[in-house]
């Protein structure tokens, strides 16, 4: 159990105590792992969070729909020419969270805005087509987003998040 000589009693004892304490501490730490890990999403929840496909054909210009992916509302807006122009006219540098509209949509699909409909302030759901910028308005604490989902007024610190998505075809997207 020890390398110390038998004459060296104090060292030998200390080594034993430290070794036992250290092994017990490692065991305690290892025990915590499964007890905490179990709180993460379970396998069925992760599997249910697989990508979803959304057909865009029923969404007329100027309309938007809300779909759910991983328990989060995703807004899909079919923007009008006017809405796109408004979003692109604003000098990017003047925005609280500077980001160009082009960076928030897929190239060639400028009319489609896909954003996570969760206010970046404290998680409420903003209302579409409301607020001073014809974008989104969060009723909880008055954050106002523009037609590109960028924060313009209020306490929210950043723009509405853009979820990972791709265009499978011109009329179909896959979110996730």
């Amino acid at each position, binding site marked *: 159990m020890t390398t110390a000589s038998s004459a060296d009693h104090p060292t030998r004892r200390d080594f034993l105590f430290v070794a036992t304490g250290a092994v*017990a501490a490692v065991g305690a730490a290892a025990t915590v792992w*499964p007890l905490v890990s*179990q709180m*993460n999403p*379970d396998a069925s929840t992760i599997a249910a969070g697989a990508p979803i496909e959304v057909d865009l054909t029923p969404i007329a210009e100027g309309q938007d729909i809300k779909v759910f992916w991983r328990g989060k509302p995703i807004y899909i807006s079919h923007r009008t020419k006017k809405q796109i122009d408004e979003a692109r006219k604003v000098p990017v540098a003047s925005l609280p969270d500077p980001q160009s509209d082009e960076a928030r949509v897929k190239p060639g699909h400028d009319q489609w805005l896909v954003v996570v409909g969760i206010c970046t302030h404290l998680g409420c759901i903003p209302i579409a087509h409301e607020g001073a910028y014809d974008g989104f308005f969060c009723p909880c604490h008055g954050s106002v987003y523009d037609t590109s989902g960028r924060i313009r007024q209020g306490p929210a610190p950043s723009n509405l998040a853009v979820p990972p998505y791709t265009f499978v075809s011109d009329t179909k997207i896959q979110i996730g």
Partner: protein
Amino acid sequence: MSGPSDFQPTNPALKWIERRLPIMGLMHSSFVAYPTPRNLNYWWTFGAILSMMLGVQILTGVILAMHYTPHADLAFKSVELIVRDVNYGWLLRNIHASGASMFFFAVYIHMFRGLYYGSYKEPREVLWILGVIIYLLMMATGFMGYVLPWGQMSFWGATVITNLFSAVPYFGESIVTLLWGGYAVGNPTLNRFFSLHYLLPFVIAGVVVLHIWALHVAGQNNPAGVEAKTEKDTVPFTPYATIKDAFGVSCFMLFFAWFIFYMPNYLGDAENYIPANPAVTPAHIVPEWYYLPFYAILRSIPNKLAGVIAMFGAIIILAFLPWLDSAKTRSSKYRPLAKQFFWMFVVVCIGLGYLGAQPPEGIYVIVGRILTIAYFAYFLILLPLLSRIEKPRPVPNSIADDVLAKSGGKAASMVSSVIALMVAGGLLLGGAESARAAEGSTKPPAQNWSFAGPVGKFDRGALQRGLKVYKEVCSSCHGLSFVAFRNLAESGGPGYSVAQAQAFASEYKVKDGPNDQGDMFERPGRPADYFPSPFPNEQAARAANGGAFPPDLSLITKARSYGRGFPMFLIDFFTQYQEQGPDYVAALLQGYEDKPPAGVTLPEGSYYNKYFPGHAIKMPKPLNDGQVTFDDGSPATVAQYSKDVTTFLMWAAEPHMEARKALGLQVFVFLILLTVLLYFTKKKVWANAH
């Protein structure tokens, strides 16, 4: 014993707190400076073991409650999903389920220790009675916890136990209705049992605090049964008792881990892997092993009310023990007669436990009655009588004298008591097992399974072939509803890639919806989907199968078992043999005979199967040579099909089996190291105390 503490923190912040709430002083006087008799043996570590078990059960229980759904339609499935999908869910469930057994195992040793050493005698009567209250609370908690998985034994155990109260004259039926919250055991019953199962452990914890308080007022009893008088008789709790308890706890955890990682179903009943069915009672209703002695007493009395009174009386009588046994000498070490009768009493209790698991017929009833009388006679006749006529041997003057008088042979007695303990425990634990041995159908031959034993793994080829057999043959009648397509790509499974699992899933049509028009529609399966069941409900399944209900196969290898008989079930504990279910399933698939033996007539629409209980099975011979073609060139024989599909179904029943065994190995290496270190540390600490 624990007088005012001289504990004084030096840190100013701690000082500030201590003046206002002397909690550190309380901890110090209770668990550091507290004088503990220096002659305590390892039976005394079970107090610490029980404290640990209570903590483990509360911790794992609180966690399981985060994932469990207390609803009659969802409870069974939610428990299965905990085991299959929650991270380490199988571990937490195994800990909690075998933890209940370990808790009772430890409490019985704790109680027998108190009985042997007279720990209930003056001035420790209240301490003892608090212990009896804890035990009663434990029984209630354990029973209600067993109901929660909502399997067949859960349901019928709940029915039988709640019906005990119907024996109460005049109010019986009303009390039972009150307990059920309905006309029968059902969803309201499950809900309230869940609530109470969550509540009672905290009540137990509260009574445990009182138990320890009373202990620290009266001081611990000890093997000599003489009170500590001088400083020389005691050692401070820390480090002496702490390190000894830590070593005891560590040894116990080794025993505990054996069940958690290698024998998780050894103590359970296979029947409880069948979802609760209010229309069918299992052939043998057997309570968990820790209730068996009382169950035997209940069944020994041919009158309903008297039986219930006797059963509860058998527990309540313990509370009167301090007055039934009035002998002045505490420890049975110095009571030659009491000592012998104590061991006889232990045998009576184990005997009752064994009988509790046997069918209530013939010789078992008679022996049960004799042992019931012996049980009560021990308390009501023997102990009062002994305290008057027995001439005890002289007790040592002091604990210090007792320690000095002790010579060698200590290790030998320790070894013999451990062996006695293991045999006794094994007998009691195996009691439930032997009930099934008596059922009298042909025993399936034990086979060599790749997944058996401590390092067993699934044979990937067999899993893939088994899946093919299931898909092409079994799935036309049997569902596999707890298995998702994604599971096929998980580690420890058939070894398919995610893409292969996806492709496999897309071959199935899965019902989904409603869509925007409110209609249900069919779409190709996805990895997250579960294997679709061949019939929409039980009625449809029965209608299509001549009245028989083809069971879901997700858990079939765990839900079927057969008795191994004495002494096999004891040997199985050490060899980790757990494959009764697979043995049975594989044997059943090959057990068909074209013509029943002479003299056996089969009911219409039944087939003769050697291994099916009762031999008349409604399922026609499902497998024939050449029916399924394997790509890997394995023989297309019934024997091969049976073995492969059984392996696949074993995986379906426990997809994390390989993870369980792998983690078990790591835990064992760790625990052995820790136990060895604790042993030497304990020796070092105690070196100057002996």
